[in-house]
């Protein structure tokens, strides 16, 4: 073979190699779409691990119905134990490993999500529906990051609006977990109270490790609140209500969607959760809409034997719905660009969460990437069932 021939061969080979990947998007093959998620299956945050398992059941359902445009979803989920360092390592490993990941879905927690946000942005990988109502996902908004969970600030505002407007409460206090989640609650409540010419009468921080809540109740009690928001973990929320009852603090308690699993809350509080008002971002567990029925059937069929049909399990299915809808609309010729374009066209899309809408990307408008803006309120009844207090409420 002459040198000239060899040179032509080399050029031809190079062209083939270059042309190969240009046609296919990372994480997509003729038969598969690779979707990733992290979620705490072990560790103190493990009760929220149901989110990632719920998404898995939804994908299984979709695959058994034939997949999306001839492709099956290949779901890659890993346990990060709510440890941001592990989240980052796991995401990098899957993203840069063989096959890569086309898009990430959901993922529990503000801190774990923040650990990978910049990485995913730099690689331009779509991430749809983080399972946390933090404001960080949309301030500033990002082209490929589609927030979904209504902001904790919206929840706080909706609760305050109800407590002050309908309930006639004047002295609202808050007990908050001393982190981003808790502080978002404080900010939302303070902003809404200001619109009514009121202020929070007490802001009491709770640390993750606190187990004796008497000091916190004492501080609350001094402010003589007629309503107290609980922006804490479910265990702390129950502790505050119980200790409050024993120490003679009996305001209207109100809490976030994190404590909205009324069956669980009622059980672990031994009934004390009765009467507490909570914000909800999903349909109620016993709702009999056709979609909820279908999901419950899928749960019976695919979920592990000791899995519980709790709010965060089917919320995990709900967090994955917009991504699935985007994939369907993007068609057979699937690219990340096409997915983002289709997600931007979602208007009042309704699954088991509230309505979801996005707008064409506008770096100055957080709402262009905040999918769900509505919540509704319920009150816990004597048997752990929910009494619906409001319809879906949109908070601007």
């Amino acid at each position, binding site marked *: 073979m002459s040198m000239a021939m060899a040179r032509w061969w080399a050029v031809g080979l190079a062209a083939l190699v270059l042309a190969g990947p240009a046609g296919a998007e990372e994480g997509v093959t003729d038969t598969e779409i690779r979707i990733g998620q992290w979620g705490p299956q*072990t*560790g*103190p945050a*493990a*009760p929220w*691990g149901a989110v990632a398992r719920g998404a898995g059941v939804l994908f299984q359902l979709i695959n058994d119905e034939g997949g999306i445009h001839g492709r099956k979803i290949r779901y890659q989920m890993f346990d990060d134990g709510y440890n941001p360092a592990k989240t980052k390592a796991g995401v990098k490993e899957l993203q840069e490993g063989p096959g890569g990941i086309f898009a990430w879905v959901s993922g529990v927690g503000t801190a774990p999500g923040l650990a990978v946000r910049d990485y995913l942005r730099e690689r331009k990988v779509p991430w749809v529906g983080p399972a946390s109502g933090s404001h960080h996902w949309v301030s500033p908004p990002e082209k490929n990051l589609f927030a979904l969970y209504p902001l904790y600030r919206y929840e706080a505002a909706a609760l305050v609006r109800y407590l002050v407007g309908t309930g006639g409460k004047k002295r609202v206090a808050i007990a908050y977990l*001393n982190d981003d989640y808790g502080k978002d609650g404080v900010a939302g409540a303070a902003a809404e109270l200001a619109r009514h010419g009121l202020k929070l009468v007490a802001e*009491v*921080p709770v*640390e993750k*490790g*606190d*187990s*004796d809540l*008497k*000091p*916190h109740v*004492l*501080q609350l009690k001094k402010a003589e609140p007629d309503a107290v928001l609980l922006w804490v973990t*479910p*265990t702390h929320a*129950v*502790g505050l209500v*119980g*200790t409050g*009852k*024993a*120490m003679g603090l009996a305001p209207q308690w109100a809490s976030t969607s994190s404590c909205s699993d009324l069956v*669980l809350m009622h*059980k*672990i*509080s*031994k009934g*004390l959760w009765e009467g507490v008002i909570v914000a909800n971002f999903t349909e109620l567990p016993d709702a009999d809409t056709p979609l909820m029925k279908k999901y419950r059937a899928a749960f019976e069929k695919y979920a592990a034997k*000791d899995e*519980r049909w*709790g709010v965060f399990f089917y919320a995990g299915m709900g967090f994955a719905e917009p991504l699935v809808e985007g994939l369907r609309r993007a068609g057979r010729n699937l690219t990340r660009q096409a997915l983002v374009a289709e997600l931007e066209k979602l208007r009042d899309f309704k699954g088991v969460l509230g309505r979801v809408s996005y707008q064409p990307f506008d770096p100055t408008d957080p709402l262009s990437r905040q999918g769900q803006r509505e919540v509704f309120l319920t009150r816990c009844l004597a048997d752990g069932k929910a009494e619906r207090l409001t319809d879906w409420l949109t908070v601007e």
Partner: protein
Amino acid sequence: MIADLWQAVASGVMAGSTYALMALGLVLVYKTSEVVNFAQGEIALAATFVAYLGLEHHGVPWWAALPGALAFAALLGAAVEFGVLRRAKDPSVLGTIIITIGLEMVFLGLVSWKFGADPKTLPFPLPPYDGVSLAGAYVSSLELLTAAAAVGLMLALYLVLAHSRLGLAIRATQQNRDAARLMGVRTRRVLMATWALASAVGALGGLLIAPVTMHPYMMWDPLLKGFAAAVLGGLTSLPGAVAGAYLLGVTENLFGAFVSLEFKSVVAFAAIVAVLCVRPSGLFARHHVKKV
């Protein structure tokens, strides 16, 4: 102001009682075998979940389930000593720490796997939040029970160690294992008995926490605080451990009430550092001089 002070002190004493139970268990084991048993929290956790299993799922009455759980803890503690620590060949202090931390993880994993991550509460004869007012300070009946248990156990253990044959054997084993064995003390059995006893004491702590909050990580904070209390008290003194626990609980709560609720839980560890700088062998233990 005075009312706040009184409430903070009362809350501190009550919180200290839980730490005291954990500290007693740690000191008992350390005294005889010079092992810091980091698995104690998770032995208590396993026993607490065994009680839960009986009470919640099998209709066992509480008067059988709770003592049953203590017996389970004692067996598990004895098994750990017999099955693991005794097998370790000439372990260093670091080696035994690694062993107990490893066991801690194994038990934690087993409990998480068997019972799942959802928070629970233990059905208990006393309602978790009912309480009484002690001259204006609120304490729950569960906390009073914990305090009684901590002080009562401390006295009982002290008497056993000082006046019974088992106590004599334990002290002999602690002071010089070889000499004790030559004098006819069955030192291995003594060690195993101590581990069983200490594990049951720790499990009592767990059973008294669980009516309020119960999940796989519930013993972390109490064990760490109990360890802090034991170190404060000198790690070899039972009254010292209990005093350390109450000192810690009260300091923490005073700090929380008058300085900052936010940094309340850090106080314990700041206190350890401070004490160890001034008195390396703790507040209540005689200074340990190693004979060469």
